[in-house]
């Protein structure tokens, strides 16, 4: 039985939880209850059984999730190419703590697209602790997208872990719009030579929201490559944190790894932090990292205004242009159109607030 009251919570004094809102979390407020989960499974590869096949537990929340029986398994047979996306939607009830887990087993040379959405069944405080665990057998290709559209009072502390065999291709992507505090720890492990990964995220926090990303590109085999692009915006009093690590083992020679994190601060009171890190233990690699935090470029805004575009419209165009680079890299599913519309709505709300 899950015991939220005696959960040994970390504190913000620990480096890995620095800047976070972990000190404000009161798990005892929530009643454990499984998420209501809808699955669009056009290929019949999903199963839901009350078991736990969780293995790795990088922290107390992942360990908590490992006790949960709220599991969806996706087994994509070797050689199968699934055209239509598998879409999993978790509805989180107010007042509850939900611990959904998705296990993806990609057979050799299999291909699939998996979308996982997190939405609130009703507005109000809730806690969602999801885990994605994906394993890619040799030459498998997985495109994964998580969309967090939870209520702005909800907490989400999630984990995504993908382990890649030889010559695999992985797209691990996240869109975060919701949550009071949304944290995602994402790790792509290149275990087989020749594997490639792309990690992409779009986040946009408003009001009092905070979005917090801890991302690891782990290279544990030679001839592997990874590319990361995280782009976010904060407005009002919102906050965001990006902490990224490129880790390259001694034996991961001939590896290329790149991380780029760009943040727009759209209001005076908004705050974003970006901390890229490199841990490289071999020569013969190609690595780069870039990160920026700042307001909309004054020259870009002036350029558009000089054509006769009002400031709030110029800002909308620049922010959408900023995010379109990420949107173009997400899996091509209908949900992505809705994401773009939500970004526009959020900007419109901002300009209304400016006018009033």
């Amino acid at each position: 039985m899950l015991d939220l009251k005696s959960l040994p919570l970390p504190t913000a004094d620990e480096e890995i939880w620095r800047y976070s809102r972990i000190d404000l979390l009161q798990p005892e407020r929530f009643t454990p209850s499984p998420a209501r989960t809808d699955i669009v499974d056009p290929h019949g590869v999903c199963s839901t059984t009350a078991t736990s096949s969780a293995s790795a537990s990088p922290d107390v929340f992942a360990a908590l999730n490992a006790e949960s029986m709220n599991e969806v398994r996706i087994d994509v047979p070797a050689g199968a190419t699934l055209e239509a996306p598998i879409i999993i939607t978790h509805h989180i009830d107010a007042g509850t703590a939900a611990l959904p887990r998705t296990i993806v087993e990609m057979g050799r040379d299999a291909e699939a697209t998996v979308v996982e959405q997190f939405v609130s069944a009703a507005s109000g405080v809730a806690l969602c602790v999801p885990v994605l665990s994906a394993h890619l057998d040799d030459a498998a290709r997985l495109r994964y997208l998580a969309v967090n559209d939870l209520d702005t009072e909800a907490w989400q502390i999630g984990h995504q872990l993908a382990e890649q065999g030889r010559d695999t291709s992985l797209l691990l992507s996240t869109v975060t719009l919701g949550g009071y505090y949304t944290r995602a720890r994402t790790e792509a492990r290149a275990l087989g030579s020749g594997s490639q990964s792309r990690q992409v995220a779009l986040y946009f926090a408003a009001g009092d929201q905070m979005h917090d990303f801890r991302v690891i590109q782990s290279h544990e085999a030679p001839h592997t490559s990874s590319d990361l692009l995280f782009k976010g915006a904060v407005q009002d009093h919102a906050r965001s944190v990006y902490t990224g690590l490129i880790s390259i083992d001694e034996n991961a020679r001939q590896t290329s790894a790149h991380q780029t994190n760009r943040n727009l601060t759209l209001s005076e009171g908004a705050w974003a932090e970006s901390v890229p890190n490199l841990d490289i233990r071999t020569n013969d690699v190609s690595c780069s990292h870039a990160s920026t935090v700042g307001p909309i470029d004054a020259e870009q805004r002036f350029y558009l205004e000089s054509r006769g575009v009002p400031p709030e419209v110029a800002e909308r165009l620049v922010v959408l242009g900023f995010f379109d680079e990420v949107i173009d890299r997400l899996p091509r599913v209908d949900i992505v159109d809705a994401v773009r519309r939500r970004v526009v709505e959020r900007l419109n709300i901002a300009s209304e607030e400016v006018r009033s």
Partner: protein
Amino acid sequence: MSMLSISDLRGGVADTDILHGINLNVDAGEVHAIMGPNGAGKSTLSAVLMGRPGYYVSGGTVTLDGADILAMPTWQRAAAGLHLVMQYPSEVPGVSIQSVLIEALQRRGRDDDDVDALLATEAERIGFAPAFLARSLNVDMSGGEKKRNETLQLAVLQPKVAILDELDSGLDIDALRDCARRVEDLSNEGMGVVAITHYSRLLEELRPDHIHILVKGRIVASGGPELADVLERDGYAAFTGGDAGDEDASSDDASSSLDDLFRM
């Protein structure tokens, strides 16, 4: 009354006064060239007229068809018919020329239904490769392509008065000719032009009606096209008494050619 009327305009950037009373009147269809060395205040003039952030006005008036331009925010100046062709157009990732022009035309109360057709026609007219129309504004474009892109937007928006800030910089001779001809055609249809330039080569393509010499934030001489010949023959000294107005300009070049003078 002139279409664009600048009267005793004073201003600068940060806390440095640069313009010390500019007077200029531009009528419909007229082409005015403003020439001067670096530091004379040429770019400050264009920035102040368009309301670039960081620049200030400390005195004087600017009206466009009688409307007080200086009282308007930048976008309203543009919608009212004042247009700045920039020396260094900004790259705006993810924003298309179509989306900007649609917004810009709407603010002018103009039809935006046929933007694509209009762009295609104008692009062909100035030799702007259609492939660039699908790119983000000015992203991955050479200096010359950016200037063609600026000229393209000018042609679509058709302002009352265009300020060309160093249109010739970064342009090869073919591109310069294409852009200058389009500007000339627009001026023949009634657009006023203020061409700010460092070099005389733009004048060979654009053939101004009036030339003004800007030195140390003041127009020290105005005349017809023959002024360019005077400059060519006698150099700047004829207007400045040997002081070209540039902070680091040497003052012993009274006999230097126009080219030398403007290379400072």
